[in-house]
């Protein structure tokens, strides 16, 4: 804690050592901490343990902060969320006066007809309710997600939790002990704290126990798995056993006026008096029916609070301090006051009595916080300590059942009269237990209500409402933790591109140059001179072993067994449904091995697929992923051979290195495998080289090519180059159910092979007519192609296709594209519309259909 004041709605509030936001505000005279969600009733400090919704305020722009468990710090900006114009003077309080007119299910019943009524009502209701606006300008705090494994997880580091952790560790288990607060931080000095400190010391000295303080358990999932969150991380803990030591909360009593500011649960009141030195009122009435209640009574008296009366059972009479009037076996009937507590009504031996007071402290029993254990069935969960207690039944005399959602006991009665009988259904209808406290206060009371009213018609009168995660408020950015875990893949030439001033962008997990300066100029360099591109992102796999050909023949739909060493072939991989999932270039090596290049984005899939079928077919094959070990530079353009030739002694003429083919070369002293590729539609060499030699090879090519007008090119130029050739980008131009025939790639399938993955499906599909295919599109009346991407293709009023790629082609001086078209009654259409443009269906490639330039 930092000493010094914080700002509260325009004024300064002093902070003393050990203060929470709530204790500092209370000392400064604040009594109304929030306005209730619907009825805008005043709510003051109540549970003091972070379990009820009453003390929630906005701190530094973050709404819904539980002030009773948030340490005060200098410079904080604290506001109350609800209330207009302010929480102290809230005109929306009229909602409370109207409560009798707004029965349970009011929204549902009232705004159902006419339909537009809800839209109008919602606008008003939304403005009047809620916890305050979400901060949208705070940036996104970075959180991490991690996984932890232990044998026993102990949730809750009180005496029971610490003991359970030690016991588990003694049996040789790895233990994870977590608590939503720092160990012992919520306890006042006394024998309990001493015991906790002693246990804590032993726990900290036990290496097998990992301690995660300030980590709230959000739920329990199968495994068992318990997710924990703090402000910086989300930890998924997988354990063999879960020990729930989450303690108990003091019972929420139902009587008229039970939500008035000035009504406290014992723990909150004694902490305020004993820890923070603020007597909770000038005239205090205590209801203590447990020994813990007696302790609270003594703590209040010791701290100087004037306790005027104490309602106690006969057995406790001697324990009541003499200055306090002991009312034996009295019954608390009602709390009275407008906006704050003024008096309580007590029944004492049949007599009704009014006692003036400004604080009522309740310590009438415990309800175990056993939500974690009630979230799952068939999981190895053990409840220990107070969490294992049998709940003391709260009194149900009236007032507010659910503080979060403003549900009164009368509302519950009414809901029951309407036929909503079980706790689970009452919960849904009244929204009790659905508020920020997740039923910590009211779930037990609701269950007792349902059970108390149950008759023979109720099937499971004892059932409690299902508990749902998250059990504790959790920041959205903590739940989004894994979103921040992005691995940026870089090629060996990354620094070279950065130094060259390239604009980099994401492309299937890689950071790649989109363009260096002018993408159109880069395009022209490739078409007219020579260009260089970093294609080190391509997947590269060595397939070797005596069954290498069998594996390639199984995974790829085309014929592979006739591929001679030094030659390469475009291959398609299908899934068992006959759908195209990957493509690549298969290069046959000497000795029956293969080098496969696959798409940058599909490399991991390709790897998995090769290994899957090697294993399923029991083949003797090694699949070696060489992707990260090899760099690759694409040298493409009419002068590509001149450029590579200037740097190598090896023969690279069309006879020695034909298309489609490959061979080993030494280029600028770097050992490469050169693959003739056709993707950009020009004479092209992919130079695959050891990754670390990339920058040297790149700069040698740049230097040697200076006189030829060499230029590096990025993804934007590549998009244009490949589209002019009509090459398909899997994923961009394709859909998940594309067969080779739909893509016009039937030439890459050999149905005469006895078997390959997807053949059975293709045989069946061949019996059906082709209903959809990918087609080349030539646009008329569109100056620019980019605007057409994703556009629907229409015939009259009917949508019969969609544009998947579109660019303005410099070679054709026209907008071109690829897109889906559906077969009509008279076959596939020849002409469609894309917005204002006419889209003519044409064969691809658009550019150099004979591939003469590629063959060069």
């Amino acid at each position, binding site marked *: 804690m930092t000493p010094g004041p914080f700002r509260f709605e325009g004024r300064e509030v002093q902070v003393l050592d050990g203060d929470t936001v709530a204790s500092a505000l209370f000392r400064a005279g604040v009594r109304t901490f929030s306005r209730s969600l619907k009825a805008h009733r005043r709510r003051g400090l109540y549970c003091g343990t972070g379990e009820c919704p009453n003390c929630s305020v906005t701190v530094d722009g973050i709404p819904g902060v539980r002030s009773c468990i948030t340490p005060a710090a200098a410079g904080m900006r604290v506001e109350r969320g609800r209330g207009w114009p302010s929480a102290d003077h809230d005109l929306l309080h009229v909602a409370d006066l109207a409560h009798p007119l707004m029965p349970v299910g009011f929204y549902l019943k009232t705004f159902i007809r006419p339909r537009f009524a809800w839209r109008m009502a919602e606008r008003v209701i939304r403005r009047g309710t809620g916890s305050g606006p979400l901060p949208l300008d705070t940036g996104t705090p970075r959180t991490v997600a991690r996984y932890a494994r232990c044998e026993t997880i102990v949730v809750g580091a009180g005496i029971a939790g610490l003991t359970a952790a030690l016991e588990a560790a003694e049996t040789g288990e790895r233990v994870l002990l977590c608590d939503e607060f720092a160990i012992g931080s919520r306890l006042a000095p006394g024998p309990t704290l001493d015991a906790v400190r002693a246990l804590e010391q032993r726990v900290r000295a036990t290496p097998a126990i990992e301690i995660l303080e300030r980590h709230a358990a959000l739920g329990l999932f199968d495994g068992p798995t318990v997710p924990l969150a703090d402000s910086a991380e989300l930890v998924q803990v997988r354990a063999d056993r879960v020990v729930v030591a989450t303690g108990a909360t003091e019972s929420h009593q139902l009587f008229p006026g039970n939500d008035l500011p000035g009504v406290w649960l014992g723990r909150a009141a004694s902490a305020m008096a004993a820890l923070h030195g603020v007597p909770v009122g000038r005239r205090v009435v205590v209801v203590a029916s447990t020994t813990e209640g007696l302790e609270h009574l003594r703590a209040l008296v010791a701290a100087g609070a004037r306790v005027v009366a104490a309602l106690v059972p006969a057995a406790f009479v001697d324990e009541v301090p003499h200055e306090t009037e002991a009312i034996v076996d009295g019954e608390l009937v009602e709390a009275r006051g407008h906006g704050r507590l003024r008096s309580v009504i007590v029944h004492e031996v049949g007599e009704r009595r009014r006692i003036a007071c400004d604080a009522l402290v309740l310590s009438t029993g415990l309800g175990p916080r056993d939500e974690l254990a009630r979230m799952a069935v068939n999981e190895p969960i053990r409840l220990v300590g107070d969490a294992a207690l049998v709940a003391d039944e709260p009194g149900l005399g009236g007032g507010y059942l659910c503080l979060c959602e403003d549900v009164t006991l009368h509302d519950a009665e009414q809901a029951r009269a309407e036929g909503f009988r079980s706790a689970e259904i009452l919960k849904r209808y009244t929204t009790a237990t659905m508020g920020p406290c997740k039923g910590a206060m009211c779930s037990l009371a609701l269950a007792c209500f349902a059970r108390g009213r149950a008759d023979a018609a109720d099937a499971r009168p004892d059932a409690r409402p299902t508990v749902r995660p998250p059990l504790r408020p959790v920041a959205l950015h903590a739940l989004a933790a894994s979103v921040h875990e992005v691995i940026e893949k870089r090629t060996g030439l990354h620094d070279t591109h950065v130094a060259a001033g390239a604009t980099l962008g994401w492309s299937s997990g890689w950071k790649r140059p989109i363009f260096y300066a002018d993408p159109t100029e880069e395009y022209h360099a490739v078409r007219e001179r020579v260009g260089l591109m970093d294609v080190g992102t391509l997947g590269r796999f060595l397939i070797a072993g005596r069954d290498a050909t069998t594996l390639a023949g199984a995974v790829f739909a085309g014929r592979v067994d006739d591929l001679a060493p030094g030659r390469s072939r475009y291959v398609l991989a299908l899934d068992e449904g006959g759908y195209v999932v990957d493509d690549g270039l298969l290069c046959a090596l000497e000795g029956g091995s293969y080098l496969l290049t696959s798409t940058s984005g599909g490399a991991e899939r390709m790897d*998995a697929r090769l290994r899957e079928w090697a294993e399923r077919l029991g083949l003797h094959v090694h699949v070696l992923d060489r992707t990260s070990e090899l760099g690759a530079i694409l040298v493409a353009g009419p002068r590509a051979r001149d450029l590579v030739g200037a740097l190598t002694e090896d023969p690279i003429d069309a006879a020695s290195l034909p298309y489609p083919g490959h061979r080993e070369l030494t280029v600028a002293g770097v050992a490469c495998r050169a693959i003739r590729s056709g993707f950009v539609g020009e004479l092209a060499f992919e130079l695959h080289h050891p990754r670390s030699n990339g920058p040297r090879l790149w700069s040698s090519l740049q230097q040697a090519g200076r006189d030829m007008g060499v230029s590096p090119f990025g993804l934007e130029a590549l998009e244009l180059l490949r589209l002019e050739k009509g090459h398909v980008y899997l994923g961009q131009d394709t859909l998940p159910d594309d067969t080779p025939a739909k893509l016009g790639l039937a030439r890459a399938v050999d149905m005469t092979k006895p078997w390959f993955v997807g*053949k059975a499906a293709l045989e069946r599909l061949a019996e059906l007519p082709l209903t959809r295919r990918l087609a080349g599109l030539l646009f008329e009346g569109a100056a620019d192609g980019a605007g057409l991407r994703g556009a629907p293709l229409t015939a009259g009023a009917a949508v019969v296709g969609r544009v998947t790629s579109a660019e303005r082609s410099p070679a054709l001086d026209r907008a071109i594209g690829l897109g889906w078209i559906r077969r009509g009654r008279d076959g596939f259409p020849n002409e469609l519309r894309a917005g204002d443009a006419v889209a003519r269906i044409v064969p691809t490639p658009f550019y150099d259909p004979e591939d003469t330039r590629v063959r060069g």
Partner: protein
Amino acid sequence: MTLEIACPNCGTRPHREFAFGGEDRPHAGADPATEFERVFYPANVEGVQRERWYHALGCRSWFVVTRDTRTNRIG
């Protein structure tokens, strides 16, 4: 949910390191009729199922695991 899967190479690891590969339906040759059955008619059992997993973020091997589809208990 956190399954733990025993990889024959790497030992027991959290399931997020693995990719699911569907039911294990052994490939039984090139006969079109049996192939079609195998591909398009999974057993979809309620109970103990043999299924394929791939240790994608580990040793990259494929193997078969038995899992009870009702309880997610493995092995």
